[in-house]
């Protein structure tokens, strides 16, 4: 069995593969990543994490606890390969660790074998991966164009970030938000509210500003694959589609694609599984 564990800045995700088929997946907040392994073990009660390397890198108190807990699980002798990815990839139990770039490339190709450009909108950064020439860009110096930008907007309105997409659909027009700096965009949001725009219309404007920021990072291409938890926001996806002009494809479960890619990497390491 191959497990992909993606512990990112905001959320932690797990995907389990058996004979190339996804048999389990789950998403929890990052700080609760341990639950994912417990969840996986309950889901597949006869497996164990026998192959986890107890390297220095994973000897955090949490990691040690998980390893000890799973070593006592009833086993059938079937080894599990855990490949970790995400910001915390080297501090959680893993057989191997890969970067999110490689994980995204492998995960997206599972669903879309001829994918050309992937945009992974994460909580703290955005990555653009051009599979045509194996290049990538990462924006991690500015919150605009990352999930943190939307968190700021949601925080201002005191609403859950998950509700932004639904509120966007209620807007009859979009307020223009020009600023590409997340912090200054809040000032501009306030100005637009003062100017008579509704919350929904300002949210629509925020999504468009977000989409413009991401679009600047993307090379010319006909089809873009969007992944990451942020693309569950339909308002953002629609804004991106209208601004970038490319065809946008969102694979099933866009939030767990990197965990899937990590699991697929494990399959590369141990093809017999």
């Amino acid at each position, binding site marked *: 069995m191959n497990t992909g564990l993606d512990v990112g800045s905001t959320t932690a995700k797990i995907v389990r593969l058996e004979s190339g088929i996804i048999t389990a997946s789950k998403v929890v907040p990052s700080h609760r990543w341990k639950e994912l392994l417990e969840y996986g073990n309950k889901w597949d009660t006869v497996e164990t994490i026998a192959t986890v390397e107890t390297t220095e890198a994973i000897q955090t108190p949490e990691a040690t606890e998980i390893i000890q807990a799973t070593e006592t699980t009833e086993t059938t002798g079937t080894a599990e390969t855990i490949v970790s990815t995400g910001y915390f990839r080297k501090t959680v139990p893993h057989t191997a660790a890969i*970067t999110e*770039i*490689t994980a995204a490339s492998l995960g997206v190709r599972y669903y879309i074998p001829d994918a050309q450009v992937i945009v992974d909108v994460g909580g703290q950064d955005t990555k653009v991966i051009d599979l045509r*020439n*194996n*290049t*990538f860009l990462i924006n*991690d110096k500015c919150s605009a164009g990352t999930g943190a930008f939307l968190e700021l907007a949601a925080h201002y309105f005191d609403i859950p970030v998950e509700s932004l997409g639904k509120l966007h659909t209620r807007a009859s027009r979009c307020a223009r938000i020009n600023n590409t700096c997340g912090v200054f965009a809040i000032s501009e949001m306030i100005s637009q509210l003062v100017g008579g725009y509704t919350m929904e219309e300002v949210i629509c404007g925020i999504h468009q500003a977000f989409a413009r920021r991401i679009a600047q990072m993307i090379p010319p291409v006909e089809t873009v694959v969007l992944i990451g938890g942020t693309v569950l926001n339909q308002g953002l996806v629609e804004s991106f589609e209208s601004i970038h002009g490319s065809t946008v494809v969102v694979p099933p479960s866009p939030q767990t694609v990197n965990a899937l890619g990590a699991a697929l990497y494990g399959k590369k390491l141990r093809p017999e599984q």
Partner: protein
Amino acid sequence: MTDTVGITALIPPELVYACRHRPLDVNNVVPTSSINPRSKLCAWTAVWRDEIMEGRMDIDSLVVVAGGDCHNALVDGQKVALSGVPTHYFFYPFDRDPDYMASQLKGLARFLGGIKDKEMFRTISGLKEKGLALDQLRVDDRARASDVFSALISFGDLQGDPAAFEEVLDTIPHTDVEYSSRVALIGVPPIYPDFHEVAESFGLHVVYDELPYEFVRLGGNDMQALAGSYRNYSFSGPITGRIEMIRQELDRRRVDGVIHYTQFACHHTLEDEIFRAHLDYPVLTVQGDLPRPSSEQLKLRLEAFSEMLEVMP
């Protein structure tokens, strides 16, 4: 009397030695400097400027390469000049005109008091031969890139003492290198002091350092030869010539990918799109600002690039 002459970018160090002075590449102190510059665009120039103006760097005069390489140096160099340091401005010809190059070298020799020891031209030519051999050694996987980079970058001033520097070159270990991918490092040198070591830790063997290679590639045994050689300094002319040169080296050194280092607020950053369009290799662009050990963001990029070169079809 031998003076220490600060130099802000590549000028022929053989000429400084031939004038019986000691060059000091002011950039070499930057990666390990603790200075937080008061005002800056590019940290490379701002840090050496403050190092000099705060009296931390012991130089008697300064040669500012103000045309054809680093544009920010022109202003920061003048700030140093206004603080009382005798300063000379050196310009490369964009059109590679040999007469203009010769006139610039003559002007520099005048500023340095005239040529007094022509034998230094030959001495340093010999050392550059050793530098080229060392460069080839890492191309042949028989020397660590971090060791070779340290040596090549020092050819800007030969560490102030050619004889002692030769001994340093002779101690560089010849060792078989294992790696996952061969990469070229183009652009200005990284401001991170541990860049090559970090790249090595991710299996990336840097087989071409664009700028330091210029330090050993260019030279000559007299003023005319120097002018004929240094007018071809790749950073100083049209980018088409630089692209041609890089392509040649990428092919000769059998690289798998290219890392383009860019410095925040350096005009060379604008060249990134051109390289991406004209080099038929995977390109990773990284950017640095203040001198610090390699950041986690940089490490992520290097690790991901290494994986992409190794794992992806």
